[in-house]
Structure formats: C-alpha cells, structure tokens
C-alpha cells in the first residue's frame, strides 16, 4: 500500500465513507508517516478553503438578456391559423386551456379517431361551444343583473366580464 492510496482513504474517511478495517490500517500508517500526517492537515484545510472560494457572478447583461428573451417568449402571439381538423394539443391552444383540461371534457367534446389518434373537427367544436354557452348562461348571472340595476352602467364593461365568466366556467 502506498501513500497515494492512504490519501484517498483519508478523503473517504473525511466523508464518513471509509470501511472500519481500512480506518484501523490508516491510523496505523499515519502514526509512522510524517508525509501522510501533513497530507491529512492539508486535506482538512482544503475543505475550509474550498468553502471560502469566491462565488463568481455573471455580468448583468447576461441576466438581462435571459429575462428579456423569456418575456418575449411569454408575449409571443397566440396561434390563430387553425385548420378544419385539430389534434388534442391544437384544440387546447384553440380553446386557450391546457391539454389536461381538454382531457376532463373528452366525454362530451365531439371527436373522432383516426390511425389511433384522437382528432376534433373545428366546426363541431364551435357548435359544442355554442351549445355550452346556451346551457350555461340561460339567464343573466346574478351579479350582472344586480349591476344593471345601477344607473349609467356601461354595457362595454359588462361584456368582458361575461366573457371572463364563460372562460372560468369552461375551465
């Protein structure tokens, strides 16, 4: 056994990974080897010195570039050029919900299967939306009828609220 191997054992011992029989052998060697005693001291100090090494910071411009790129991606316009037949991901994008949400409505969404793939006819989906609108909003929601009692209510303010309500219920 040479001193290089004993140094590796010292490292393992510092991390609590050295087998008991090796620890006994290492102690026996250390008692008579001045060089390995120095190595052990250096190793103990190395742990502290490594801990104290500086953490280097990337330049602000790199950080700004990443943040800007992410915001650009987040602001990217939504797709609107859908064809007559949609797959599940396209339908999710079309309806502006996640594919998981689509999954919860699969039993009522009009669909067909082709080549093991579930597909949706856009026209059928739009009809489904219309049916849903009629069944969900047969009368004005209570909070809107209350709002209308107030004089000077702006109908332009109500319509977005109605849309929001539809979207919330669809989700």
């Amino acid at each position, binding site marked *: 056994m040479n001193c290089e191997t004993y*140094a590796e054992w010292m*490292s393992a011992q510092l991390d609590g990974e050295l087998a008991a029989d090796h620890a006994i052998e290492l102690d026996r060697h250390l008692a008579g080897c001045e060089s390995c005693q120095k190595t052990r001291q*250096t190793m103990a100090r*190395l742990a502290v010195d490594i801990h104290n090494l*500086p*953490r*280097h910071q*990337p330049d602000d411009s790199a950080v700004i570039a990443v943040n800007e*790129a992410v*915001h650009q991606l987040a602001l990217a316009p939504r797709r609107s050029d859908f064809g007559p037949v949609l797959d599940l991901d396209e339908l999710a994008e079309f309806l502006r919900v996640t594919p998981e949400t689509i999954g919860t409505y699969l039993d009522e969404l009009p669909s067909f299967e082709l080549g093991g793939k579930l597909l949706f006819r856009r026209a059928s989906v739009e009809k489904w939306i219309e049916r849903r609108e009629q069944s969900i909003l047969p009368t004005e929601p209570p909070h809107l009828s209350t709002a209308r009692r107030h004089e000077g209510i702006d109908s332009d303010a109500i319509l977005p609220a109605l849309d929001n309500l539809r979207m919330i219920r669809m989700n």
Partner: protein
Amino acid sequence: MADLTDEALMVLFQKGNSCAFERLFERYRIPLFNFLFRLLHFQRESAEDLLQEIFIKLAKAKDLYDPRSPFRPWIYTVARNHGLNHLRSQAFANAKNTLSFDALTTSTPDRPPHELADRDDTFGTVASKDDQQQLEQIIDRLPTPAREIFLLHALEGLPHAEIAQVLELNPATVRTHYHRARAQLCQWLTMEATGRKGAQHEL
C-alpha cells in the same frame, strides 16, 4: 413560489407561467455560471454566453424536460454538454490555427487566473487572494473527469448520485474519482507549500 421544488416550477413554466422560469433562473444562474466558468478554464465571456444560451434554449424548448426526472442533474447535464462542446470547438479552431490544446486550456483564458480574485463581483472571500488564486489554478490542473466531479461535488454541492447521472457514470466510480482528485490536490498543495518554504529559505 419560493417554496416550490425545481420540478414543480418547471411544470408551471411548461403551463405558461414565466415567473416560474424566472425563479428557476434566479436559483441556478450563479451555480451554473460558476460551474461553467471553471469548466471553461476561467473564460468569463464564454461562460456568460453559454449560461445565456442554455436558459434561452430551455425557455424555447421547455417541453423537452420530463417533469418526472429530477431537474438539477438534468440542467447540469445540459450545461456540461454545452461547456464540453465549446471546449471542443475551441480546440478544433485552435488546431486549425496551429495552436496546441494545452496552450488553449492552460494559459489563454479571457482573464488570466491571477486576476480572478481581483474582480469586485465575487462574494464570500475569506482566505487570502493569493491562496484562492493558487487553489483555483491547482483545481484547474485536474484531469477529466476528476475535475468535473470535483467541481460538481466540492464546489456546487451535488451528491455523488446526481453527478453519476450528469456524467453517465456509476456512483461508485464517481466516488473513487472524487477521493482520488482530493488526494491529488492535497499532494500538489503540499508540494507548492514545500516549494514556497524552500524559496523563502533560499532568500
């Protein structure tokens, strides 16, 4: 959002939450930059470019990440691959310019190692700048994959099991390389200290 795991943040980002991505970037920008900076032999600009490239690619191809797999070894794998590709392309470019790979990896960083500790954008400095500079240079001398393993474990705090995933090695092999690297560093540090004492004695 601060309490969420990396994996949960990635899932949120995959669903379109850009704040979740910002949080991930905040968590990883300094650790990944330090890893890349040292992996690239202190080439600051290249490390910054790669950091930028990695996160922008990640933002564009967020669906490539499988949320069932742990995020940290995954992102370090991406960083390591980018870093090694960069070193290879530099070696190729330098070979074409009849420069040797040794010259590239040991003496032509954007900022020479002796200037490393002079920057004011570092923190946590306790030991003397000379000692830190010497230690950085000695770690840089370690061969691959011992150097990568040492950087990932001792400086970035990744456990051996995660490093094994990053480097596609057996965890026992990673452990062996790590202890060998630490023993080698101690040997070099002892030799340096002996050399310095000898020089002082001669003066």
